[in-house]
């Protein structure tokens, strides 16, 4: 039995099936496109992206997106930007390669930082590049180098660490001196004993008594008397030598006593170091007041730059990205860019029309241009650029991911616009800068990071929340800042992503630090007096006994030396007197 291979009668239903697919596309393409833009935009940005209307015309090759709203990934009730309309001219043929190439895009009615009524945050599964970039940006801002010592300035109180007497130099020196005094006393006593001064003196005195009964002709005895005198002299010489040693030793002990005074001065300094002060130097004040706001700005800049690097990587290696969400496992989709081919996404040229000062009575419109936004910069071959210039606005950015390492630099300056409020950390005080100038520069070369944020507000005002929250520090800061109507603020970021350094300064720094210093000055003096008294108490317990011991040792050794010398002198005089009596002044050989 022969079986036909092709079922020709099914050709008509097949055609109908294909026609059904085409009809479905025509009916639902706009809806599918809107969902695709919302989903992909949300996935890339890391915050909710909404589109009011999406209209695609493959015949004309253009797409119109109306009511585009991109939420901020950092503030749930703020939009990153809104756009009234995007009109894009699409290249149609690349669509067959699943590539989106937009020759020209016109964006009108762009507004930045507008408020929203519902949260723009989206739950993150942590697997996509955006989730990782967001996590990196958050951990970057949370590292210790960028944390503000809020509590110290907020409380403004002093604290004194415990004073351990074992760490006082006076105590150690006193104990050492006491030991030295004891050993010196023992050494001197032993030395005196070894001289046998008393024995010599007693022998000489006894010999003198023998001489009283001697005759002038007793020449042998007279010679022995002279030898005794020499022995006494030798003993006295040794005693003199010992006296010199004792004087040196006593001088050393006196030096030790003087050193105790110096040690006490050092202990005073050490104790003062235990008095921990709040950061009242001017640079610390700037950091405390405006550090979080600066970190917030730079964190955002870092996030968007890193996001660009994640989705616009340099090089032509295959790139992984999470597969589409579906009931089945998503897997990983891999891009295979090839030289001289089109990238997966390319926006050649975009004209931007945006508003600044949307919340003012007369918002101003500006124009800018965005070129070369692509998923494969190496294929496009040129950096992505953004520029907008007007008399009061200058924005320039260049994202060079053509080859590694990526080099990103962006800067903008806007003059005479309403500046957003800045809340002082841990204080119930808010700065409303009013109209002013603001500039932000940010550069990321490989891992090296540079940033500068500058705000000038000539008519700033301050608002304090009701109540007495914040304590004395808040009162003090409020007293200082509420009288200042001009703000000059500069924050500079340097270093690497892993080891950033942030310096913040403002015209408020010196004023606040002077006030703080005055406030804590009295407390500092009292605290220092307390720790000085503690040092004295610990030191006196050790020093007074040592001083007494040294004095006693000195007195004892001096007295003993005098007694010994006196005994020798007396004995010598007695012998010499008897010798003179026996010889009647004659000098015998």
């Amino acid at each position: 039995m022969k079986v036909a291979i092709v079922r020709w009668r099914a050709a008509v239903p097949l055609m109908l099936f294909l026609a059904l697919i085409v009809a479905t596309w025509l009916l639902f393409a706009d809806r599918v496109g809107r969902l695709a833009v919302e989903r992909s935009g949300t996935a890339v940005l890391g915050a909710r992206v909404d589109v009011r209307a999406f209209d695609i015309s493959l015949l004309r090759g253009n797409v119109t997106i109306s009511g585009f709203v991109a939420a901020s990934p950092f503030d749930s009730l703020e939009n990153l930007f809104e756009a009234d309309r995007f009109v894009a001219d699409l290249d149609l043929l690349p669509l067959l390669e699943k590539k989106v190439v937009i020759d020209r895009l016109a964006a009108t009615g762009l507004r930045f930082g507008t408020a929203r009524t519902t949260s723009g945050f989206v739950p993150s599964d942590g697997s996509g590049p955006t989730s990782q970039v967001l996590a990196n940006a958050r951990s970057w801002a949370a590292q210790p180098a960028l944390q503000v010592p809020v509590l110290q300035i907020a409380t403004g109180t002093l604290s004194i660490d415990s004073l351990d007497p074992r760490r006082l130099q006076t105590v150690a020196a006193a104990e050492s001196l006491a030991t030295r005094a004891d050993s010196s006393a023992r050494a001197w006593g032993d030395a005196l004993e070894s001289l046998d001064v008393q024995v010599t003196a007693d022998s000489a005195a006894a010999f003198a008594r023998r001489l009283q009964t001697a005759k002038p002709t007793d020449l042998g005895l007279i010679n022995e008397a002279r030898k005794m005198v020499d022995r006494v002299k030798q003993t006295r010489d040794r005693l003199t030598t010992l006296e010199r040693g004792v004087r040196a030793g006593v001088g050393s002990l006196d030096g030790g006593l003087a050193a105790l005074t110096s040690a006490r001065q050092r202990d005073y300094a050490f104790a003062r170091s235990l008095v921990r002060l709040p950061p009242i130097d001017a640079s610390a004040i700037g950091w405390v007041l405006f550090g979080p706001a600066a970190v917030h700005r730079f964190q955002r800049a870092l996030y968007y730059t890193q996001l660009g690097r994640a989705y616009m990587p340099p090089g032509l290696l295959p790139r992984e990205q999470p597969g589409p969400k579906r009931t089945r496992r998503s897997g990983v989709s891999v891009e295979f860019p090839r030289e001289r081919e089109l990238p997966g996404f390319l926006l050649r040229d975009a004209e931007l029309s945006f508003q600044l000062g949307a919340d003012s009575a007369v918002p101003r419109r500006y124009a800018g241009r965005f070129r070369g936004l692509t998923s494969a910069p190496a294929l496009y071959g040129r950096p992505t650029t953004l520029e907008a210039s007007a008399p009061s606005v200058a924005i320039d950015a260049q994202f060079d991911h053509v080859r590694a390492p990526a080099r990103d630099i962006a800067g903008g300056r806007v003059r005479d616009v309403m500046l957003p409020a800045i809340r002082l950390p841990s204080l119930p005080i808010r700065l409303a800068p009013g109209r002013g100038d603001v500039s932000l520069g940010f550069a990321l070369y490989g891992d090296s990071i540079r940033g500068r944020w500058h705000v000038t507000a000539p008519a700033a005002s301050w608002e304090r929340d009701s109540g007495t929250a914040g304590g004395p520090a808040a009162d003090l800061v409020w007293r200082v800042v509420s009288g200042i109507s001009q703000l000059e603020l500069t924050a500079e970021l340097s270093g690497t992503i892993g080891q950033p350094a942030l310096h913040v300064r403002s015209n408020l720094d010196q004023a606040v630090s002077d006030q703080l210093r005055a406030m804590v000055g009295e407390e500092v003096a009292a605290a220092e007096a307390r720790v000085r008294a503690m040092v004295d108490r610990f030191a006196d317990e050790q020093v007074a006994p040592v001083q007494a011991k040294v004095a006693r040792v000195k007195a004892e050794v001096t007295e003993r030396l005098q007694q010994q010398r006196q005994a020798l002198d007396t004995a010598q005089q007695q012998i010499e007197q008897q010798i003179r009596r026996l010889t009647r002044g004659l000098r015998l050989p």
Partner: protein
Amino acid sequence: MVLLKLLQSLFKALHSEGTPGQVAAGIALGSILGLTPLFNLHNLAIAGLILLFNVSVPGALLGWAMFVPLGFALDPLFEALGRQLLLETPALVPLWTSLANIPVIPLTNFNNTVVLGSLVFSLLAVVPIWLGGRWAVRRYRETIGQRVQQSAWYRALTASRLYGVYRLFRPDT
């Protein structure tokens, strides 16, 4: 309802006028639909083949229904296979790069690890499934097929409207 349709597919395939080879071919093509993620361009082509070629459409539906759970279960294997082919076999990168830059081909989502892994697996399994299916259908018809066809519940099952649609696509013998 789904179970009912599955049963209808099963018995209509087994008792259709098609030869065991036609039924098995339908099952084999339907297995591709079941093993790979459905909404991809290659499945449109497979559906076209099922309709156009003289294979058993109920067999294809049966194959699809049978292999969908298997597809879910084997997704980790498919992903590993796809990853191996797409990312861990440098010799194949030029091939993927070429395919990725040929019009229409990228619309198949072949560059997705699960899609590629499941497609390669299902293409490799087509012939064994066809051979096994043909043997199983033949054995069924030789043994219990006649009795099942004469049972009251089978007649009730085939009396539904779906059977009329099926007859439009039944294989020509």
